[in-house]
């Protein structure tokens, strides 16, 4: 049926090892968030009023977080531009876009942090029932991911400054972009679920 000529010699697989690995990792990340979002939905559906009666006075900062959402989405675009830049061998542009992306990420975390401080002052803490608990755990889990993505972006920036990337060799930028896009794309889902509904 198959002869020697038809043997499939793989010179270059369609997805490089690094890219495949990062996509596989995102599969696991998706399941981690599915577990937490599932828990959120169980609490959300299980309570007749949301927030529960004991939390009536507390409003989540919808508008500020909406602006924050926009910032994060823009950072997704800037990261994409960084990725485009290195494919065209534009190393200087790569550095600039990476820097903007990293700063936007830090800004997102800063705004979210300051909102958390205000919420805690208003009395919404981890201990205030599942409403506060799942809010901090779910949003916090995402924040930890943003933080690690920011660290990753700045590491890639350092490598870019050291001249480690070219149009042929940019695995570091590539994997970081995929991860960043995942973290950015996840956020609107959480925003709509946790803040708006």
């Amino acid at each position, binding site marked *: 049926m198959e002869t*020697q000529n038809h043997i499939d010699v793989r010179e270059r697989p369609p*997805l490089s090892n690094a890219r495949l690995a990062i996509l596989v990792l995102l599969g696991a990340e998706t399941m981690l968030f599915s*577990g937490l979002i599932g*828990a959120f939905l169980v609490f959300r559906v299980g309570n007749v009023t949301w927030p529960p*009666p004991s939390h009536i006075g507390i409003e989540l900062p919808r508008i500020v977080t909406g602006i924050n959402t926009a910032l994060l989405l823009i950072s997704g675009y800037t990261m994409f531009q960084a990725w485009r830049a290195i494919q065209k061998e534009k190393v200087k542009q790569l550095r600039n876009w990476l820097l903007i992306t990293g700063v936007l990420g830090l800004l997102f975390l800063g705004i979210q942090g300051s909102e958390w401080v205000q919420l805690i002052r208003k009395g919404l803490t981890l201990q205030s029932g*599942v409403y506060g*608990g799942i809010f901090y755990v779910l949003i916090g889990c995402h924040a930890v991911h943003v933080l690690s993505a920011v660290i990753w972006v700045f590491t890639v920036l350092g490598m870019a400054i050291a001249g480690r990337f070219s149009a042929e060799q940019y695995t570091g930028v590539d994997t970081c972009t995929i991860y960043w896009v995942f973290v950015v794309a996840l956020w609107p889902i959480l925003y709509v679920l946790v803040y708006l509904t």
Partner: protein
Amino acid sequence: MHDNEHTEQHHEESFISKYIFSLDHKMIGKQFLIYGLLMFFLGGGLALLFRWQLAYPEKPLPVIGASQQYMEEGEVVTGADRMWERIYESEKEEWLEVNMPNGVVEPAFYNMLFTMHATVMVFFVVVPLLVGAFGNFLIPLMIGTRDMAFPILNMLSFWFAVLAAIIMMTGFFVPGGHAAAGWTGYTPLSSDAQWTGVEWGQILWGLSLFVQGLSSLVGSINYITTIINMRAPGMTFFRMPLVIWSLFIVAILLLLAFPVLSSAIVLLVFDRLAGTTFFTATPEGGGDPLLWQHLFWFFGHPEVYILILPGMGIASELIAVFSRKPIFGYRSMVYAMIAIAFLGWIVWGHHMFQSGMRPGLGSIFMTTTMLIAVPSAIKTFNWLGTMFRGSIRFTTPMLHGIAFVSMFVIGGLSGIYMANTPVDIYVHDTYYIVAHIHYVVFGGSLFAIFGGIIFWFPKMYGRYMNDALSKIHFWLTFIAFNCTFFPMHILGVGGHMRRISNPQQYEFLQGFEGMNIFITMSAFTLGFAQLILVFNFFWSIYKGKVAEQNPWHVTTLEWEAPTPVPHGNFGQIPTVYRGPYEYSVPGEESDWIPQAQPEHAPATSGD
């Protein structure tokens, strides 16, 4: 692209980089093998402790227990009495004094024993052995590549597992004892210390499993990438040996299932440490204890298939090789495994029939569960079809392969009973369930592991395991296993609850005393039989009969590599010309054609 010349160079390594922080997939596989075997003894030891309590409730253990005279009159008779006297006289609270005064297993200690027995066996024995040891050793060799895609991640995967084991072991010695809420850690039993009295044990249990999750995550990323991207030329997906298929599917299951458990553990640890109430219903907007069960079993049921699929893969290899016949229905074997893996995601509710569920929903879970019998039966009949009219060689690995199939059938059949909601009302939480899980995971997975160790030992260490000892080990294990676990079906139907430390306190269970003693005696025999395996294993590494390169006449690629397998595995990466099971091909002189042997006649399809 992957044939890096530098890997072929002579490779001098220091002791540390060769044996400890090794990057070589074969060494990491062997590390996982030793790790799994050590933990196997810990897990088995815990089981023997609670088996003693079940047969002789509140009687002191043999050897380390105090004598009757000492317990009644304080008269020192034996060496053990002297030990107990020293323990009682010492100022500080000794571990033994708290957990088993006079050598009698305390009820709280009993809870910890069965919890840790299952935790250790599931997470630290069967998965590391099947996935860690066989996965690492076999994947690059059988698909024909030099190493894993990410050797450093591979090393991390092992050391994460070691870290997880250390955290788990620490739990035995913290005040309050180790986790005691069962391996399933049901909430609110596990989420609040007031129910079990366990403080740090449960938290360390969670943290350890979280770290073990990282180990699995890193490992499965590596396996998936390696299998997709690094197969030798000509090694198409449908020319991969079934054991590689099973490991590939299991890597995907591990990758997707474990993070769900991790998310549940995060919530559990927050409940324990940060005062949240995710798993406790409270008046001011509290959580839901059932949520844990959903999250746990959404992970837990795929986990069950993680425990058995590689066993099926190994058994397929053993049965095809020693029947000298192509595996019957290669493609249907692959599709059956994929079907089992897929169905595994939509059956988790069958663990929760009695937890409170809409009856209609229960019927749906019952149906999806029973559907799994179809691919399982396909596999079983294919194994029988492979053996049918084959020239079977009853080597020890083959005996283990046959034991796998027969025990798996018993375990699978009892599973169909339990899947029926009306039957489950009666048998849930009884020894019937215990019998079922042990027939599948011990009778299934462990027999496959034993068979696999003996089968691949010549490739791992260049020597045979001593066959006489292996045979004694097999027969003792096979008989003692059945004597231990088969009567548990009867106990279960008789209403014997699982997880009770003293069955004698219930009048309706008193008639089972003899059977419990019989089970315990068999369990001790089973435990001691394993010492033969370990002795044989280590003795054969140094003293076993030297094996040739391909002692069992196997077609797959790992036997093309020289023995002992050098760094980089193959001199030149082999090219694959045919399927993995070309045994007894009509018209051929030899009864086996290696996958790497070029065509010289019109090919007979491998599948």
